[in-house]
């Protein structure tokens, strides 16, 4: 505190003292205001953060409920059909028609296989999402993945009356990742291209090094995907309208949603372009590891 004193009639001195008090008071007040402002800002920030967190929790809970609902549906609907098939045969509705009985039992077998595939995919998804199990990764030459894949895909293409044109670079790079999962990504994309090709159609596959990555491009001239459906193709259980006529033919896993997660887990990228009735081009790439090429 100021100790200086003024003569009673020395108004100048009094004025000066008052002015100094005033200045100090003003500076205290303004720093107080600053503190209050900071407090207000941080409380607004905290409130915003809190409400964002709340909204996200609500969203996640909803997504989880929806996911459980959809999984239950995807499992129960085919099981109900298998149950019906068994009932129809056991209750004697098809007595005397061995051919029909066999046909239905065969369908039941396919449905059960699909359910198993879906369950496998769900387990894989939970591993990938929760990272309960760190992915086993190693360095491998990506060309190795194709040796068995080519045979498998050619066989499927032949069955579907579709031609494949393979154009794989001989100089494939090394990738650091899980070769089984990466094979699965390629298999899924090529399988889709064959599945959604028209009979007699052609699937062009190019695999090469590009910008420090291995890029696989798969181009078909099939049914294509509607523009409004494109943003949803990576959603779990989403199937485009054009995809549905094939529902009876093929296994129904989590497909592209799983592909996306595997690609993300390898810091790769996936891009799908499509034109309805004209075809789809899928590009997937994985970053090259630093190891020397073969």
């Amino acid at each position, binding site marked *: 505190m100021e100790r200086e004193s003024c003569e009673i009639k020395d108004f100048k001195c009094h004025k000066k003292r008052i002015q100094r008090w005033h200045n100090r008071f003003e500076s205290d007040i303004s720093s107080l205001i600053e503190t209050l402002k900071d407090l207000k800002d941080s409380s607004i920030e905290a409130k915003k953060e809190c409400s964002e967190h709340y909204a996200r929790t609500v969203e996640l809970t909803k997504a989880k409920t929806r996911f459980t609902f959809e999984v239950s549906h995807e499992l129960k*609907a085919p099981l109900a059909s298998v149950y*019906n098939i068994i009932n*129809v045969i056991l*209750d004697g509705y098809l007595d005397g028609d061995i051919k029909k009985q066999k046909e*239905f039992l065969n*369908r039941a077998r396919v*449905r059960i296989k699909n359910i198993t595939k879906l369950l496998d995919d769900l387990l894989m998804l939970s591993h990938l999402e929760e990272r309960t199990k760190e992915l086993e990764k190693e360095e491998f030459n990506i060309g190795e993945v194709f040796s068995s894949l080519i045979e498998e895909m050619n066989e499927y293409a032949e069955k579907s009356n579709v031609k494949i044109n393979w154009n794989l670079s001989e100089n494939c790079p090394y990738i650091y990742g899980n070769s089984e999962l990466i094979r699965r990504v390629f298999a899924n994309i090529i399988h889709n291209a064959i599945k959604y090709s028209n009979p007699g159609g052609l699937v062009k596959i190019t695999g090469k090094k590009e910008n420090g990555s291995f890029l696989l491009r798969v181009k078909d001239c099939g049914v294509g995907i509607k523009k409004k459906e494109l943003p949803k193709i990576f959603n779990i259980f989403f199937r485009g309208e054009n995809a549905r006529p094939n529902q009876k033919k093929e296994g129904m896993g989590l497909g592209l949603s799983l592909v996306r997660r595997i690609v993300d887990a390898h810091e790769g990228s996936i891009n799908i372009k499509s034109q309805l009735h004209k075809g789809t081009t899928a590009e997937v790439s994985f970053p090259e590891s630093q190891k020397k090429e073969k």
Partner: protein
Amino acid sequence: MSKEVLIVDDDPDFVETTEIILRGNGYKTRTANDGEEALKKVREKAPDIILLDIMMKTKGDGIWASEKIRAEEDLKEIPIIMITAVNQNAEMVKFHLGQELDTEYMPVNVFMEKPIETEELLKEIDKLIGAP
């Protein structure tokens, strides 16, 4: 003339086996793969009863189709059995369909959950429209 059941489901195996069961029990059947096709077939010729799957991935789900049918004077009395794969909880249905439905209101007569027991299905149909 035997009574006719319209079976609506996007699962071909379910449709075909249900058809075999109902025909084997004396009912006539027609089928549709989605809500839109069902509505078209109901308008062409009204069936005696409709078995309607709730979650069809193709055009028009079960709720949509049943509301359309209930809104038409000539069709609104047709009994509808709604078949669900998951459960018959209206809240869940509402949640999944993302619609603001009144939970008291469901435009169907009965809910049945998959897998369907043959005896129960026949009993429900018999209750609603009588013997074939």
